[in-house]
């Protein structure tokens, strides 16, 4: 059942991606909210899948590769729809939906796997740590995608490519403005998640092994990069193409922290560790 629903969700994101891309490139774009609607339906289906898997495994479904990526996709979708509703431009659905589809497709092959957190960590604080982490990832991911849109529009303006894409993408200042807001909020949430993580480790008494965990190191690097970015924006008042490039670098770091580190090293955060019986 969860395979069917997850495939359905992927289908919805595929339709959203198509509508989003057509919205940017087609002479007669689809109706304004179609991409967002399909993303919303896809996210709902993923939520149902996660709930079913959580009930079946009697644990919060975030520890396997599929579960982690599904939660990530849902988090980004929710934050995007909230910002779109609040007035941010909807025209970058052509970038967001394909990205989320790709993320989901990376997770689908691992749908059979299950993991769970180590027993000493299984408490409410862990839930909050995970929630803040995903929320932070979502905001920072959206900031990275806005930055990508900024670079595309900057290129259009610089090289006088004044076609449909130029016409449909938002103004540079709009993208810069939302980049700044999303980075600020995402950074705060990520910081909160990290602090809670430190608290959890202290309480579980496993300081040494966690300090040498590759994911912790990657997270620290990501945090530092975004801290520099926030400082450059807030204190120095920097804007423009440079900030967009740094934000995209931040997204790269974030993706490495979230997914990449598990492919190159063993991590205590790992969702590659399959529990017996699953």
């Amino acid at each position, binding site marked *: 059942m969860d395979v069917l629903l997850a495939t359905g969700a992927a289908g919805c994101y595929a339709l959203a991606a198509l509508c989003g891309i057509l919205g940017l490139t087609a002479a007669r774009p689809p109706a304004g909210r179609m991409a967002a609607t399909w993303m919303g339906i896809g996210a709902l289906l993923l939520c149902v899948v996660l709930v079913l898997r959580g009930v079946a495994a009697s644990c919060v479904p975030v520890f396997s590769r599929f579960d982690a990526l599904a939660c990530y996709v849902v988090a980004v979708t929710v934050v995007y729809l909230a910002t779109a509703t609040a007035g941010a431009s909807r025209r970058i659905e052509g970038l967001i939906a394909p990205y989320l589809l790709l993320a989901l497709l990376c997770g689908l092959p691992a749908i059979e796997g299950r993991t769970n957190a180590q027993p000493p960590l299984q408490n409410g604080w862990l839930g909050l740590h995970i929630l803040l982490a995903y929320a932070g990832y979502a905001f920072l991911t959206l900031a990275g995608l806005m930055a990508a849109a900024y670079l595309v529009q900057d290129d259009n*303006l*610089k090289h006088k490519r*004044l076609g449909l894409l130029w016409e449909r993408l938002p*103004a540079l*200042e709009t993208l810069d403005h939302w980049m700044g807001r999303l980075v600020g909020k995402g950074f705060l949430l990520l910081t909160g998640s990290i602090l809670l993580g430190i608290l959890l480790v202290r309480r579980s008494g496993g300081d040494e092994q966690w300090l040498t965990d590759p994911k912790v190191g990657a997270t620290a690097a990501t945090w530092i990069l975004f801290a520099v970015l926030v400082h450059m924006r807030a204190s120095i008042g920097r*804007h*423009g*193409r*440079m900030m967009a490039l740094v934000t995209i670098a931040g997204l790269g770091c974030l993706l490495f922290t979230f997914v990449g580190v598990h492919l190159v090293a063993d991590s205590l955060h790992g969702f590659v560790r399959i529990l017996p019986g699953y």
Partner: protein
Amino acid sequence: MNLAILGVNFKTAPLEIRERASLNPQEAGGALVRLSSAYPDAEFVLVSTCNRTELYVAGLDVPERAMELAGFLLKDSDEATRAGLEKHFYVKEGREAARHLLAVTASLDSMVVGEAEIVGQVKQAFTLAAETGAHSRGMTALFEHAFRCAKRVHTETDICRGRVSVSSLAVEFAEKVFEDLGAKTIMIVGAGETAELALKSLVERGAKDVLVLNRSLEKGEALAARHGGRAVRFELLDEYLCKADIVISSTSAPHVVIHAESMRNAMRARRGMPVLLIDIAVPRDIDPAAGDIKDVYLYHIDDLQRVAEGNLARRREAVDKAWCIVEEVTGELVDLFKVRGVGAMMRRLDEHGRVVCDAILGQYMGREKLAGLPEASKEEIRTLAQKIVNKMLAAPRKALREAARNGDWDSYAALAAQLLGLDEYGPDDEGKPDGQDNKTTTAGGARAPTATNRKE
């Protein structure tokens, strides 16, 4: 609906004539009130813009009263003057009038095809006419179709895509760089006419902070005063460059006025805030190397003209498709009013039958032989009389419906009205609101014969 238009536009009259017929909203409101008083049975909508003044009329023979109606539109004119202006006015009737309204609202009849302002102007005119009680349901359906047609033309064709003047393109580029022009500083270097037009467009879009730099401080101050800005000495250009978000340059200098190095220094101070440079001068005022600096977007006059020409060509290609939509909607309107006309005629036939029945019965029921009959018998006689009348009218009703289907409505309706002695301008259900007398309209476009029937 007996629709007609009396108007003057940029194709038929030079500016000095159009100026005399150009009415601001107050004047237009006054004209509508006077028209409604003079012709209480007619409906009016008055559209007056810088390029046209048109009076849309329903329920009145416009060709016969053209100059009389023109008198309501012209400022300070006497009969002799009006006679001299006759050649500049045009009259359109019936289907042609409906088609013209749709074309005007869809911006197909505008000086710049595809300009978007005309829809708003027609909507304002329609609202004003409603507020003054100058029109009612008939015109409402007509104008609603016009607005729907305009929307279709704008969404289904490329007629409105892209701007076509250099000054409006400056705004378009600015809106692709900046979110809110109201918070931006515009610097205008030099005092060229095109640059001022571009500045005007930006100010209309909300830009408030305007700096004017000109070699002649007096000219700079005059230009600044016109647009609510401030003049700065030309020598302070480099100092103020970092403050400007949008720079429009149009000097007559034979050499570069804004160097790449000055721009680099300005961008260091701006910390990556983007700058839009628009160079309208020939030879160029701004060093082309400035366009290579990060976060600087430089456009010169050729870029703007190339984009404008491309947009104009796209609009022209879209015109044919737009006219197809206009013809389609015109057909729908004609059918709509035909159906209404058929409905109105059937109601008049019913009314006629009822009136005749009631008159005869009223006459005979009072007589001695019938007065004593029981009420049930009287009721039977009334029913019998009504059935006889309905049976007699059944064949004409069927013939009229056939005629409407076959496109012969106008002649059949006129004949039926004549043969059956119907009041052709009798009441229908499209009367004016507020308890005013029902205005007279003809059914489905059938009109009383007129001496003239002038069409464009």
